[in-house]
């Protein structure tokens, strides 16, 4: 099993840390992992994206040009990455702020209203964990117990008290995944 | 011959000894020109190290310039730095061996032109090193070109019509600038043109090394110096020219003697 993922959105949405938690969870599941961020001025308030590879085998190229799953969190990223989802792959997005919804027929399209749910939870910082929950529902590549271990490993000890909140957010994400479209076969 | 030898042997009897070269200065013939100040300053450094008994703990850093071969003359461990980089090299040595004495020895081109950044930042960090600065207002090694400290109107091979402020800017009083930095513990300007001046300079160098032991910041000693070859003057005339022209621009005396600024004043108070 190899899962090649991009997470793309605005800086400040927790894109990089969501990728990090996913990668750490993969390590806890004895997988090979690679996490590669966009870096530079993009880090400071503009778009941010990170690719994560989870695999049972040694990872050759850590640089991805197409993805099994794209997690899209703003319009710029939708414009940039929709075309780069592999045929039969998955596009998961938060419709908040999206003007041009995905149009491809040959991919699975899923959505989760992460921004709204985070606000409803009373803590906008849970946004990325809600999205992560939705992803794990769509692609159960990591067991939840390993995500918990991944959280423990990637968060500094002083933030460990936030782990239950994060797990709740993941659950909410799982419960609120909406299937928009299943890929048309044969495309 | 034998009469002469007998007379010499009579004169050099140990009981007639009134002065001896520091054993830290070896017998190699110095490459410096007659009348050059470098030799005197070398001697003073050797004497201070010997008198303080710190030969085994002292590392010198020589520059690029006339003093590049300083390591040939004083019997301690040395590193030869790239042009202008002696303060960085000295910082590297001192940071990994804070228990040792480290001094840099630089001329005006090295310290105040190509190495200005390294000089400023070493002093600003308050590196616990001694910096010796030989200011003779000219590049000696490369053949008498303009230095940052060359006086207005002074003739050099690259200012053949005299230093022109419109073309070349102004003589740099870098020592005054360094004295303002909070990292500087002791900043002084001396000279070695008379026995009295030599004694004062030796005191200053000794004090600088003692400050290093106290670890209270950078100790900086400028020595206003002569370059008879570069100035194209006799050694005696050079001293006279220096007193008349250099001293007004570079007045002698201590510029700072308070130790490094009290770090508590600068430190962010812990919440």
């Amino acid at each position, binding site marked *: 099993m190899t899962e090649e993922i991009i997470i793309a959105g605005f800086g400040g949405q927790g894109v990089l840390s969501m990728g990090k938690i996913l990668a750490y969870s993969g*390590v806890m599941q004895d997988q090979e992992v690679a996490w590669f961020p966009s870096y530079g001025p993009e880090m400071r308030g503009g778009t941010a994206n990170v690719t994560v590879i989870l695999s049972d085998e040694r990872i050759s190229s850590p640089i991805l040009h197409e993805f099994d799953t794209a997690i899209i969190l703003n319009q710029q990223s939708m414009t940039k990455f929709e075309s780069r989802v592999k045929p039969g792959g998955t596009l998961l997005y938060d419709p908040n702020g999206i003007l041009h919804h995905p149009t491809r027929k040959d991919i699975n399209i899923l959505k989760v209203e992460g921004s709204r749910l985070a606000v409803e939870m009373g803590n906008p910082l849970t946004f990325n964990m809600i999205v992560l929950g939705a992803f794990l529902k769509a692609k159960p590549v990591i067991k939840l117990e390993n995500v918990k271990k991944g959280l423990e490993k990637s968060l500094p000890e002083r933030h460990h008290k936030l782990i239950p909140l994060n797990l709740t957010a993941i659950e909410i994400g799982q419960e609120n995944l909406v299937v928009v479209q299943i890929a048309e076969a044969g495309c | 011959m034998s009469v002469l030898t007998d007379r010499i042997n009579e004169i050099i009897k140990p009981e007639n000894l009134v002065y001896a070269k520091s054993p830290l200065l070896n017998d190699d013939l110095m490459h410096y020109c007659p009348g050059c100040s470098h030799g005197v300053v070398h001697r003073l450094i050797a004497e201070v190290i010997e008198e303080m008994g710190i030969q*085994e703990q002292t590392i010198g850093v020589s520059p690029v310039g006339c003093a590049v071969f300083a390591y040939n003359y004083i*019997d301690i461990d040395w590193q030869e730095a790239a042009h202008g980089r002696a303060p960085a090299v000295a910082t590297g040595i001192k940071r990994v061996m804070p228990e040792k004495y480290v001094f840099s020895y630089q001329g005006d081109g090295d310290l105040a032109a190509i190495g200005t950044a390294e000089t400023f930042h070493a002093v600003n960090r308050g590196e616990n090193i001694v910096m010796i600065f030989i200011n003779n207002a000219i590049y000696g090694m490369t053949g008498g070109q303009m230095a940052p400290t060359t006086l207005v109107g002074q003739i050099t091979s690259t200012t053949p019509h005299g230093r022109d402020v419109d073309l070349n800017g102004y003589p740099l009083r870098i020592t005054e600038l360094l004295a303002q930095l909070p990292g500087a513990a002791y900043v002084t300007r001396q000279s070695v043109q008379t026995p009295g001046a030599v004694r004062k300079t030796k005191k200053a160098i000794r004090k600088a090394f003692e400050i290093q032991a106290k670890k209270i910041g950078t100790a900086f000693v400028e020595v206003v110096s002569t370059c008879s070859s570069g100035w194209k003057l006799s050694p005696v005339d050079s001293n006279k020219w220096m007193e008349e022209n250099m001293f007004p621009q570079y007045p002698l005396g201590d510029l700072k003697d308070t130790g490094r600024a009290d770090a508590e004043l600068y430190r962010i108070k812990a919440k």
Partner: protein
Amino acid sequence: MGELRLMKGNEVIAEAAIRCGCDGYFGYPITPQSEVMETLMTLRPWESTGMVVLQAESEIASIHMVYGAAGAGKRVMTSSSSPGISLMAEGISYIAGAELPCVIVNVQRGGPGLGTIQPSQADYNQATKGGGHGDYSLLVLAPASVQEMHDFVILGFELAFKFRNPVMILADGVIGQLMEKVELIDQRPRWTNEQILEISGEWATLGKPSGRKKNIITSLELDSYMMEKNNLRLQSKYSQMKAEEVRYEAIACEDADYILVAFGSAARICQKTVQIARKKGVKVGLIRPITLFPFPEKIIAEYATKVKGFLSVEFNAGQMVNDIRLAVNGKTRVEYFGRMGGIVPTPDEVETALEQRF
């Protein structure tokens, strides 16, 4: 099994330095490698191992601080990215000339000039052919994974002291920013003063005890005959490196008709190309030079009589390809494919290039 962590290449440089007993790091921030110093400053090793960490006023100052501290027999290092390494060129030449051991990390970005902060391998020639003035060589290690970033810090110090020569770890923005699993070595002690005396006492400026000659660290020698002798000594060192320290990885080369040659992150991409091509029935192998100096010319020369061609894949305009051509010496075709300006080619692009060239 050492501690397993998920870390960025840049972070692991810092962690490995502390753990292998490094005495000092002097650096200046530049993207994409600033995490090296940031990590060190966060970990505060001066409180644990006694390792010194200092942010200098420039790359020029950094490398000369390294010169000074290395001259004291300490294990010291710096890191930077391409424009910063250019600034260090003077100091690196002095360090090579004065025969001092140290580790220099270059997390390359695209040039020339200020260029881009995206990954590149355009400093290959600078790293392997000098970079500064004079006849000198660095021993150059090219990591292709975060694990190798870790391992090469440790290996780098070993080689630096074996040869009294600067070692460069030539990484790029991909390996610097990439996070992978890495197994860390257990903490090793820094060398004691007694150990340093034993290892480097003959030349290091530790303070001159009575009874030994003074030690002088210098690259200066005005007597041409002596200077030629110094140069010959350096050259014999480089010959010894060529004889003893060549490292490479050969993947799927035994039955290959074509061999890709790539280092660092380009080699990772080529691994995937090998898989893609073999699925199509094209027998492709990969030689990954691990030491760029000394260059693995023997293995390339051996395969030159067996394969139909080599394709050098580089994130530059074709630099390593010249070393491959020298090794192949006309025995088979040698072609180049690469991208510049911070663009990382896809494995498919490489495969297409291979098809087009041959």
